[in-house]
């Protein structure tokens, strides 16, 4: 059995766990803990080590999805989780400009780890306070060639689009290498 993996990263409360839950065929193995710091109590729990989801591709191949912890104090896990990844997705909460700087910093950290393809998913685009995709591109200082896709982490169709777009990028790079 062959396994490959992709990493879903992003700031605290960006929707990484929800993203993996939406497409994983197993109940996501989550290392969530109750949030202790008052300032971060926008949700009840947060991922402290990783989230783990699985999609069986066929009898010989399995895709693992790893979600990283969003809080900086668990960033020692990022490097461990990134080892051997096909590519990565940076989730951004489109409604929270206070997390854009952090998202940019996470993106730079992961880009420095490995020259793998990546994509940015602008999550929570269904909410009324969500920033426009093109505004987010400027705020996140993304080059025009970096893919930035609208996403709703709880909606399977948009999650599929994000995953397929990342895979298409991986494919494009492979095909460019072979020609």
């Amino acid at each position, binding site marked *: 059995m062959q396994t490959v993996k992709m990493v879903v990263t992003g700031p605290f409360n960006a929707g990484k766990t929800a993203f993996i839950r939406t497409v994983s065929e197993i109940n996501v193995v989550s290392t969530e803990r109750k949030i202790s710091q008052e300032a971060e109590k926008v949700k009840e729990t947060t991922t402290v080590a990783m989230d783990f989801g699985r999609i069986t591709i066929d009898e010989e191949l399995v895709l693992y999805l790893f979600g990283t912890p969003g809080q900086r104090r668990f960033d020692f896990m990022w490097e461990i989780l990134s080892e*051997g990844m096909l590519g990565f997705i940076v989730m951004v909460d489109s409604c929270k400009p206070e997390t854009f700087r952090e998202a940019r910093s996470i993106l*730079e950290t992961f880009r420095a780890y490995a020259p793998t393809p990546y994509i940015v998913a602008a999550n929570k685009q269904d909410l009324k306070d969500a920033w426009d995709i093109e505004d987010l591109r400027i705020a996140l200082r993304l080059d025009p060639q970096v893919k930035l896709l609208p996403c709703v982490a709880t909606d399977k169709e948009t999650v599929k689009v994000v995953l397929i777009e990342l895979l298409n990028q991986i494919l494009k790079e492979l095909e460019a290498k072979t020609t």
Partner: protein
Amino acid sequence: MALKGNLRDFNLTQLFNLIHLARKNGVLHLENTSNKVWLGFRDGKLAYGGIDQEDNSLVAILYRARKINANQYRTIKERASGMSDKELGLLLINAGYLTQQEIIQSIQTYLIQIVQRLFLWTEGTFLFENEAALPSDKILLRINLDNLIMEGSRQLQEYDQLKDEIPSLDIALKFCERPGANVRNLRLSPEEWKVVSYINPKNSLKKIAEAAKLNDLEIRRIAFGLLQAGVVELVKADGFSPKRTINPGIPHTSPGEQVSLIKRIIQRIRSL
């Protein structure tokens, strides 16, 4: 969709950068505990603005700019109360009181003063109303934001914030190829010109700081200003290698097999 938040998280220079690069039309509303301010934009340029608690009529602006005296101010207020700013401006030009240039210069000074006051706000909410109509009775200008952005970044003293924006000095700058991005249009200080003269992917910010004799705060502040003004972008410095590189996860098979593997995953995800 909304473009709203707090200046604490997304400051005015960043907002101006967004409006400038996206060539936005609309009205930006800003509010803190004591003031409410609005700024109108056309094609990413500052067109007009005002402070809610202040008289922002043309006659008040001209009076504050000392283009008219207190008697003239009172007289115009009494006799031309029903006139729009455009009508009043035309009347003053035709009557030979003021030139068009003087009127435009006074409005421009007024708007820049508002922006300068806003740069001191470290806290306050903002809301950008996309495509909101600008007042039709006002004399609308087209003030480029790049120099205002540079000025705003010069006032940034928060080292932590600058460090968040530019975490490492091992990176380099390169000039943007975006149309309209031109450093010649900027009014730069001698230190800023010095930094500009060293911009090259071969020179990390650390090297530039050493050559230009700038400390960490100064080099970060200048780099941030140029970045926000949209004339440069961050790039990895030539010769920079990360502390540790992680192995990408594509299996070590033939290129054909690798392509086939990715296609199988795509097909499966489509079927979910």
